[in-house]
């Protein structure tokens, strides 16, 4: 589904991603862990086409298409979804209006007619339950006045609405209490299917108790320096990242 080869990217001339390669197949959940500043969030920004970042080298293909040539909105319409670490507020724009615009843009891309009002409201209702959002959601402005937990649940709600092929969860666990974490993780697990895949970016192993990854990768200094199964996450939790840093430095010598 997603193939990243030797990716290099920078922001304002400062290189953050320095030759990253990763392959994600349908049905898989990949966890990307690593210390602060390793480039985890940059990776999610680059994959979704955030204009603040510049790709200088490497290829990314998504379902056979050159992802780097697509606009951010077309990447979304192709099925890439990012659950933002810090979801922005858009005052005055109701969730129902926002989501309906998004859903219809996705449908237009697939040459489908706009969704009817009834079908849309039914869809909203159904997906809302998945993340236990309250009924007033539809009329609230996008993320405005939402608590930290509500914002993250709202991200998963939008993910459910857009039904992406590849979801990237960027530090979705940050700022969540244990109940909210469980609700968010439940939502993600229910959306899992053999046809879709997820990249879960996290600093802590905690989230991975709820979302069980097939692969765990350690991102350090802009590269994936170690990959393994879910047990790698436990090892990282126990031993921290220093031993990885040491390994990398020793290998460099």
């Amino acid at each position, binding site marked *: 589904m997603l193939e990243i080869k030797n990716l290099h990217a920078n922001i304002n001339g400062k290189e953050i991603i320095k030759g990253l390669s990763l392959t994600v197949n349908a049905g898989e959940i990949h966890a990307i862990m690593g210390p602060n500043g390793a480039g985890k969030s940059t990776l999610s920004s680059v994959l979704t086409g955030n204009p603040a970042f510049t790709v200088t080298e490497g290829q990314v293909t998504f379902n056979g298409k050159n992802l780097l040539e697509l606009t*951010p*909105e077309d990447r*979304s319409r192709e099925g890439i979804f990012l659950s933002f670490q810090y979801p922005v507020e858009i*005052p*005055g724009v109701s969730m129902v209006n*926002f989501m309906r615009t998004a859903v219809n843009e*996705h449908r237009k891309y697939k040459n489908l007619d706009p969704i009817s009002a009834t079908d849309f409201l039914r869809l909203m209702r159904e997906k809302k339950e998945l993340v236990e959002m309250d009924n007033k959601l539809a009329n609230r402005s996008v993320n405005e006045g939402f608590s930290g937990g509500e914002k993250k649940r709202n991200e998963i709600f939008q993910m459910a609405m857009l039904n992406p092929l590849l979801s990237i969860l960027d530090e979705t666990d940050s700022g969540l209490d244990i109940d909210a974490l469980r609700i968010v993780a439940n939502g993600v697990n229910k959306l899992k299917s053999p046809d879709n895949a997820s990249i879960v970016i996290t600093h802590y192993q905690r989230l991975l108790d709820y979302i069980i990854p097939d692969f765990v990768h350690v991102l350090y200094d802009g590269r994936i320096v170690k990959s393994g199964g879910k047990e790698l996450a436990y090892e990282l939790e126990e031993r921290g990242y220093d031993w990885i840093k040491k390994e990398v430095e020793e290998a460099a010598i």
Partner: protein
Amino acid sequence: MSTDILDQVTQGDYKYGFTTDIETDIIPIGLSEEVVRLISAKKNEPEWMLEFRLKAYRHWLTMEMPTWAHLTVPNIDYQSIAYYAAPRKNAPKSLDEVDPELLKTFEKLGIPLQERMALSGIAVDAVMDSVSVKTTFKESLSELGIIFCSFSEAVEHHPDLVQKYMSSVVPYTDNFFATLNCAVFSDGSFVYIPKGVRCPMELSTYFRINAMNTGQFERTLIVADEDSYVSYLEGCTAPMRDENQLHAAIVEIVAMKNAEVKYSTVQNWYPGDKEGKGGIYNFVTKRGICKGDNSKISWTQVETGSAITWKYPSCILLGDNSSAEFYSVAVTNHHQQADTGTKMLHIGKNTSSHILSKGISAGKSQNSYRGLVKVNPAAENARNFSQCDSLLLGDKCGAHTFPYMEVNNDTAIVEHEATTSKINEDQIFYCNQRGISTEDAVGLIVNGYAKEVLNKLPMEFAVEAQKLLQITLEGSVG
């Protein structure tokens, strides 16, 4: 709702910019006492009206164009403008007599003059260049005693009402542009709602400048007698032309005891092209008076057009317990300039006013809010709340706020809040990531920002206004 609108909007150009090929009766350019007399004669006006015009004209000669606004106004040559133009076939008695080209024009603008407007519950008065073309529903309204007609007809058939109220809110000496209007005004709408009548439908006037090198000088007078209610809408468009055209209108509203008048306008005069060539100079004086106790006037305006806008719909709160509202969205793009706001003059006791202004600047435009809240010494317990927000798109435009307050009574509570914000790239990227293009994202964000004001508009206008905001700002980000 916005989604459908966004879908419909695919082109960013001014879509009302066509001209109508129609025989026009136009007088030679230039302004003189003779021209004033000629206009009056063309309209078969009574002597008192001619006297009024001449009085205004003579006064105008002593005045100078105001320069205090935050606007760069090129020199306007008042002798190079034609002050009267009319579709040749004058005063049609029925729809069949109206020039078919003219009807097509209004169809194109989405203003069917046919009686099927009944379905949407709006009565329309359409004014092209200097003449009112057709007023619908006059008969059914007159059964309730409501008068809704062109200003010229009012002069002819209701001279007592016109003489009583015309110029009672905006005196002929008021300001340079208002005085000019008093001298040369062409036509406009007249509304009278009798005592105790709630007007059952929205009354609407549509203004259209068509002829070249003409100015449009219409005046509107709305009188709501005791215990009455009316909601009035005004729309306007003009063809795309390279020269600038002058529009100097007057609107006067009188609300008697317990009366309520809601006045909404979507101003979409041609704004000029992307380089700032052409466009309408819009110098308008709008003022209402809450004359009786418990009366209420609200102004709602969506300003997207015109190269230059100079406009301050105001209220004189004379009656005790009277209240006034001013809701405004003003958008400027490319080289447009707007200096707009309101004046609230508190005179009666327990009066209240509410100002909500949302400015949006893009391109190289300049957008200013200018407002005055004045509380007279006798205005016990006056209340005012003003909120002025500015939204900037890009870094070459300007937003300015000039709030003035004169409070002469200790019991008054006057509050003012102002914010300035920019559409930030994070918001746009967030929308992009959900599959929404940048252009649509700007539309969503701007409509969200202006929602509180748009919600005050009657339904039909709200939809139109949302579309307009989107179109006006197309190509302004990126």
